[in-house]
């Protein structure tokens, strides 16, 4: 039976190598941001274990910061429009002054200040005390554009398998 297990394990590892998959695991400190990946990737499997002994909220972010779950959106120029009355006045051929009022949408641009926002959440769950959570197959793989960070309420550990570069 042990030999059979070894065979299966070897087959799994060789398949993983074929598809360029990488498995990574580790621990997550309570209430701190942990950087798991700093490049775009496709997360093929993900498992979170609670080690705090209490229900544990876990959030995975599409981010590549080692210290923050936020991203800075730079200042940019945006556009909008508002309703206004445009009055045109002219003198008709009969000598009568004609005034026309058109209610129009007037476009304008404005500057949107830089803002720090929470990065996109790619997976959120509450792990039961000393329990394990794995996303259902339908929601996998998870794609991240910037990287992968995680933040938990209590201590936890994780195991992820990913394919680098989207």
């Amino acid at each position, binding site marked *: 039976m042990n030999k059979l297990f070894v065979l299966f394990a070897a087959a799994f590892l060789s398949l993983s190598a074929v598809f360029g998959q990488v498995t990574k695991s580790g621990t997550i400190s309570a209430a701190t941001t942990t950087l798991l990946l700093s490049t*775009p990737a*496709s997360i093929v499997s993900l498992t979170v274990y609670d080690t705090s002994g209490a229900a544990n909220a876990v959030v995975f972010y*599409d981010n590549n910061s080692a210290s923050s779950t936020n*991203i800075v*959106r*730079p*200042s*940019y*120029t*945006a*556009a*909008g*429009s508002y309703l206004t009355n445009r009055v045109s006045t002219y003198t008709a051929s009969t000598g009568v002054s004609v005034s026309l009022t058109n209610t129009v949408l007037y*476009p304008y*641009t404005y500057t*949107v200040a830089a803002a720090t*926002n929470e990065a*996109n*959440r*790619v997976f959120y769950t509450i792990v039961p005390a000393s329990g394990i959570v794995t996303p259902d197959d339908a929601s996998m*793989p*998870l*794609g*991240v*554009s*910037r990287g992968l960070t995680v933040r938990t309420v209590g201590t936890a550990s994780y195991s992820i398998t990913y*394919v680098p*570069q*989207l």
Partner: protein
Amino acid sequence: MATQQVKYYEHYSRWKNKYPKMDWKPNMGDTLVGIVPQYSPKSRQYATPQNLTAQGNRNVVSNYERNNSGRPKHEYFESFQFNWVPSFADFRTGQINFANKDLTRQIAFFYDDFTRWNVVNYAPNIYIVGNNTAGESPYIPCVAGEPTAASSPKDAAFWAAMGAKVGPDRAGFLDFRNICAVRDYAETVAGIIPWGGMPGKPGENAIQRGKFMLTAESGVYNALQFDTHVLNVKPLAMNLLNSGFAGVISDNVTFLQEWQGSALRFDVDGVFPQPEIEVELADITYGTTYNYETQPNPSYTQAPYAVAVFEGDEAGQDLPVGPPPAPFNQASISTSKFNKMRWNGEVILTDDVLVNYGSGVYDSNKYAEYVQLISHVTVGYLPKTARNAIPVVYRRLLAPSLAATV
């Protein structure tokens, strides 16, 4: 050379025949102006006329014209100088032919890049797939205007901000349902009308008439065969094992695939990486000449965001660039007629070059030992109805087959 230009220009350009051409001739000035008459707005949703016994209400319908303008631009394309010894008529085999193909390829890319960048920059609205900004719809107004050699209205900060708005994971991908959503916004919010007849693309059977066109990288269309919605409702006859998704998307959206190295992609900083790069191969070098191979640039292929263009009827018009005028394709053409023929973006061979004799000494090419391929390209884009094109920003999937879409 002309035959090569016809062949290779058509191969590398995707935007060449998209828009009607402007009838612009030399000496018409440096500004293109177009006039578009406007229907008066529909001003009510119900009508309540007077009884016959009362005096009728009067409807005075006045319509305006709007103008739009664009400025023609120009660019030079040159090859390196080729050494040519007239006494021996000696060229390295295939040297000029290949350089001609290469220059034609670059001109085709340049034309596409110019046209698309104008379409995208003049567009007054943009669609962000899975927009995560609270209170914003995915279809939002944006800054628009003429991109110049100095700056573009939609700058790096703008694209970085748009990228940050794109939804997470598959919610940010341009899948079947999001394509339909863009179409819905285009029809109901933007009031864009479908193509009213276009010359040339995608075929000669007018398949585009009455439809919208989505121009994007191949990954968007390839992903449809793994799209959960498509898989749930596809007809049994659609064989997705031996062929991919085929046909028009949801009745009236046709797909035009960008040339593989030409899709518009940007990184988290809003920078558009160069699509190809020369890789230095270490195995063979000839003296000080390095051995290079042109390959896709990893920064480009791995860029996390891309811009697709969703279009209705005639977003703009442009100047014709590229293949020769119609007489070239006629069954017979006299040599004298052919020699007089000129077209915008024509690659020609010249010996009108300066020769560098070293130590800062330059002299004319009086021994006629050097020749060079050159091309002067004039391009122009007139944003006729700029809002009829909607740039769509989405999160890329490099291999959709490994990440089935929602």
